[in-house]
């Protein structure tokens, strides 16, 4: 249920995103989802890729600092209120959302939300209790 997400440190400078993306492309690793957190000081590129182990090795050999974290993917209907419904279900629960990002995923009328929870296992329990569907990893990786 948990999906491996890679994070890479990137300086907040022009051209610093192209490098890692090109490296993955050259070796046939597909980027399935992506989010960039940028601050005035630096950026963090977060990726979900088709082959996590291969991508980690490629990036580390190229000198990047790579961190793997577990995230959850939740499917919502791609319509006004889809996200709000999930968030209000989580509101008041003890799980903490560190950050999240969303993208339409080629499903008919569905969008996917990627959540980084402080405690992903606790989050799974709560989401399941609320009847919110969690996507299996291979759905994201192979879709």
């Amino acid at each position, binding site marked *: 249920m948990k999906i491996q997400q890679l*994070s890479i*440190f990137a300086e907040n400078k022009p051209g610093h995103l192209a490098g890692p993306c090109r490296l993955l492309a050259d070796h046939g690793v597909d980027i399935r989802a992506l989010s960039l957190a940028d*601050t005035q000081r630096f950026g963090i590129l977060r990726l979900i890729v088709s082959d996590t182990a291969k991508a980690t090795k490629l990036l580390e050999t190229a*000198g990047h600092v790579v961190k793997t*974290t577990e995230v959850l993917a939740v499917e919502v209907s791609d319509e006004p209120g889809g996200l709000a419904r999930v968030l209000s279900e989580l509101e008041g629960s003890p799980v903490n959302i560190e950050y999240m990002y969303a993208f339409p995923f080629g499903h008919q009328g569905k969008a996917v939300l990627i959540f980084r929870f402080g405690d992903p296992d606790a989050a799974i329990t709560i989401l399941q209790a609320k009847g919110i569907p969690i996507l299996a990893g291979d759905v994201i990786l192979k879709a």
Partner: protein
Amino acid sequence: MTETTQTPTFHPASAPDFVPAPLLRKLQLDRLQAIVGHAYERVALFRERLQGRKVTPANIQSLGDIAKLPFTTKTDLRDTYPFGLFASALKDVVRVHASSGTTGKPIVVAYTKDDVAVWTSVMVRSFAACGLHEGDIIQNAYGYGLFTGGLGAHYGAEGIGATVIPISGGNTDRQIMVMKDFGVTAICCTPTYFLHLIDRAGQLGVDLKALPLRAGVFGAEPWTQSMRKHIESVTNISAFDIYGLSEIIGPGVAIECPHHDGLHIFEDHFYPEIIDPETGKVLPDGEEGELVLTTLSKWAMPMIRYRTRDITALLPGACPCGRTLRRMRRIGRRSDDMLIVRGVNVYPSQIEAVLLEVEGTLPHYQILLTRDHGLDQIEVQVEVTPQVFSDRVGALEALSDKIMDTIERVVGIRIKVTLVEPQTIQRSEGKAKRVFDKRGQT
């Protein structure tokens, strides 16, 4: 694995380290009188300075009389470039070395055959103090060439009967391959280069703890106790600080013994004083000041009261190892390393200590100084390491804030800290250059 206090075994080459103090003082005075006479006779600059003070070699009747002699500075070596301070005929000089000379002309130093023998002997005694002996395989990763490190360590390592690998600096992957394949037991290089070797070995999947490597002889730049702890925690080596400078002889002026509490100065060849860098007044043992060294037995180019710019203290009391050679505290800083930023004294070693404290290991970093509208700007760039990296923005911001706060607490001014990508700060294969002062250009 640093303490070997119980029944130490001493190398025979170490015998001069244990000469009773009164005899050592007598030897120092005899040699001082001889070398002052030699320099007075052969070096015009020295003779003129003594005449200006109405002092002759005959005025040196005790070791304390050394204070009557003028200091020698690096500027004197530059002003007399290349051979102006030689005290031997060129035909008797068998070797010259020179500083890297990053700005202007290098400084040149010279050795007679006997001087090379003295240098070799102090390097042999240095290796012996580190517990090395015949049968050791020593990888000498100091640069060979005009720099004194390479050849100095080479002669000493051969002198003690070890197998020497004269690999010189650079080509880190080959260094690691040789270290592993040749069964290297000791390495000589700068401490920052060894940190780089550790990093690279990790990337290559080489476990340094699994190798027979048991000693590192690190010098040519100041390093810290926390760097030693880090090195010793990720390898099985005992890390020894070696001190030296080309102007005096090269490496082998002072060395740590296995107690790692200060460096024993080879006083039978190099007479140490600590002075107040402002007034030039000699300070008693135990007080911190600038180290001044006099070569007692170097004939091609004697250095009388050479101001090293290194800040240290002579440690009072005897070392448990039994050596009668006095110890100097490890060099934490040089008086000319000091940066004055907006009127505040900043030592790069303070910033290094903060990075070690906050991160637990020493990241690669550099200090940049610029001037903006007449105001000094200082920035510390720190490479992000896997140990501190996080996917959460807040964690990285907290890290750089913590570094900034700790620097402010230690140094007294707020310094901008920028996290940069790994492998973006230039690596050094010799002395690390950490400070880039561009205030003259902006």
